[in-house]
């Protein structure tokens, strides 16, 4: 199994069956995508018309291809899928991506076709991703099978398993354009005729390019195996799941109460909990939490400090922390004393840190910098959120001190959020994020992220 997953994610050679010279057609976009991603392996194209596409030679049939090509991406119509899989299997290809839709997701005819396809997969000896998938992405190999235009995808340590093409399509484009973190692998599962979330989760579990795993699933194909695999993987790496769609209702005509209470997805909820998987409830958390883990570590616990330029934030964000199961603990005495040294005497420095007075006294960089250093050094604190106040009139500080201090305390995550002028906030995010400091445009977001990371940490063995 490990070998075949490597053929999906680290292929040395690939063939595109149904390659096209027409711009915008999947069979054409796939080829361009591979080129744009910088894929270095051998690319073989197949189209009965032959000739040349995007500078590659085109073979007229699968039979003409060399044997044992690692992976095939098939962009032919659904009806041709079974015979294509058989033909590729006969040529020794072990990993096949089937893009076509028109199977069980559509109607009875499609269901019958999918059954035929499943039989063909078994005979072929190959493993299949899809059908009805946008494909997958493997950044360390500069490879993608997606037919959604992607370009050069930034490399990182986050990997996705999704029952949607979004994470090899529009959501990936969002990540690439609005965020500054990178990904390792991403896979759209499609109809899961063969490979399912368990296969991918298992692979990501031992894949050393993957440090955290994010899933979006609408169904779990093999629930018992999922429980087993997820339990194992979530001990080693943070695993998050957004479960879409109402789960199957419980037995309606149950004699006992337990049966009627087993509705509303309660059994799935329990199983996910048991698997050590951290539940996400918002789609945007698939980026927000991922971003936090790509460059910063998982916090050791739920004890938070934050630097605030506003008294209102110290109050209401403390309330929000409480509702999110985050602690805003007292700081050590020596931390308070240090904070007090550069604060006006009428402000009592404590957690959360009201930094406004200190900024007036000693300037932006020194006030924020020394305070950040002090709270990061505090043994009562697991993570720090810096709330920046950025306006033209108050001045825009140099922000490298945040980057430097974050490096000084690698086990304690530092996130930045803002209040002030939008243009400066955006510029600060664009400056800080590529340097490894996750930034959040709304003040609640970093706390939501920390709350999810703290519950994830609880699932993992103490290290």
């Amino acid at each position, binding site marked *: 199994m490990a070998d075949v997953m490597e053929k999906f994610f680290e292929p040395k050679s690939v063939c595109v069956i149904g390659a096209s010279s027409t711009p915008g057609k999947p069979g054409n976009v796939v080829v361009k995508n591979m080129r744009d991603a910088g894929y270095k392996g051998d690319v073989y194209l197949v189209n009965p018309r032959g000739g040349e596409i995007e500078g590659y030679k085109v073979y007229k049939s699968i039979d003409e291809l060399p044997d044992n090509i690692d992976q095939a991406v098939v962009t032919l119509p659904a009806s041709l899928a079974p015979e294509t899989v058989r033909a590729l299997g006969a040529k020794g290809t072990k990993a096949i991506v089937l893009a076509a839709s028109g199977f069980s997701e559509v109607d009875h005819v499609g269901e019958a076709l999918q059954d035929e396809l499943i039989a063909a997969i078994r005979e072929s000896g190959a493993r299949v991703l899809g059908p009805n998938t946008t494909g997958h992405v493997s950044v360390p190999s500069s490879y993608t099978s997606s037919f959604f235009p992607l370009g050069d995808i930034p490399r990182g340590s986050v990997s996705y398993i999704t029952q949607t093409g979004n994470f090899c399509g529009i959501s990936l484009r969002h990540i690439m354009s609005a965020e500054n973190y990178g990904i390792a692998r991403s896979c759209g599962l499609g109809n899961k005729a063969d490979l399912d979330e368990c296969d991918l989760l298992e692979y990501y579990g031992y894949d050393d390019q993957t440090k955290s795993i994010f899933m979006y699933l609408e169904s*779990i194909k093999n*629930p*018992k195996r999922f*429980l087993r695999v997820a339990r194992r993987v979530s001990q080693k790496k943070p695993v998050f799941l957004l479960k879409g769609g109402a789960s*199957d209702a*419980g*037995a309606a005509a*149950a*004699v*006992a*109460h*337990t*049966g009627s*209470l*087993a509705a509303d997805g*309660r*059994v*799935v*909820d*329990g*199983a996910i*909990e*048991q698997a050590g998987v951290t539940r996400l409830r918002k789609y945007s958390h698939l980026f927000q939490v991922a971003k936090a883990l790509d460059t910063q570590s998982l916090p050791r616990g739920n004890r938070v400090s934050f630097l605030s330029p506003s008294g209102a934030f110290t109050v209401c964000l403390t309330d929000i922390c409480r509702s999110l199961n985050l602690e805003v603990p007292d700081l050590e005495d020596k931390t308070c004393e240090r904070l007090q040294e550069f604060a006006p005497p009428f402000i009592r420095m404590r957690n959360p840190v009201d930094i406004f007075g200190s900024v007036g006294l000693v300037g932006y960089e020194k006030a924020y910098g020394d305070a950040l250093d002090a709270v990061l050094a505090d043994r009562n604190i697991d993570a720090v959120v810096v709330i920046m106040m950025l306006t033209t009139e108050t001045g825009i500080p140099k922000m490298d001190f945040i980057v430097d201090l974050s490096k000084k305390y690698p086990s304690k995550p530092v996130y930045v959020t803002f209040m002030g002028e939008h243009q400066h906030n955006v510029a600060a995010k664009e400056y800080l994020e590529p340097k490894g400091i996750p930034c959040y445009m709304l003040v609640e977001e970093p706390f939501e992220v920390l709350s999810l990371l703290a519950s994830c940490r609880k699932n993992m063995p103490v290290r």
Partner: protein
Amino acid sequence: MATRVERILKGARAKGQKTLSEYESKLVLAAYGVPISREVLVSTQSEAKAAAKKVKYPVVLKGCSADEAHKTEKGLIAVNLGSQAALVEAFKTISKRAGKNYDGAFLVQEMVSGSREIMIGMHRDASFGPAVMFGLGGIFTEILEDVTFRVAPLRKKDARDMLRSIRGHKILGAVRGMPAADLDILCHALMAVGQVALDHPEIEEIDINPLIIRGSKAVAVDALIVLSDSEADGTSS
């Protein structure tokens, strides 16, 4: 243990029962170490009197048959019977309510007092297989639906997590002058219910409701085991 449980299940099936009686249900659970109330199954008034002496007053008298899953609704329960006179009176009333054709027995049970009622259940999920439930019991089960599930087999950690995951988890703590509930007993009971389901695929559902926390220790006061329609049904892949 297994053979005794097998015998109960086989006997029930032979008689065409869809459920086990309360008495049989509790025997099965007790065989797996779930603490149950002290009780004696009787058929006559004089047997009931003798049983009450053994169990010690105050007692509870219940109609007990495989057909009476919801005894409260039918008025087949009399609680807190402090004397023989009260017991005799209750025996007459319950016999009358049960009707002339009632062929069930009666259960004389110790009166378990405690103001905290919780519930343990088991449901066979179509995907995950047997799932164990924990939640608030008694009348609050249906009103608050404050329950949580885990898939069997349960590890100790899963059981512990269940006790913490309901909204009303503080009910198990030291509240209002009551001692904290013994969590080990509850964990063991949760794990045991999962094991019953794994060992006996012909059991479709289990309700233990309520378990009353007497002092710090939970005791199963009522229980219902539902059998699957056919033996093959219960086994899921």
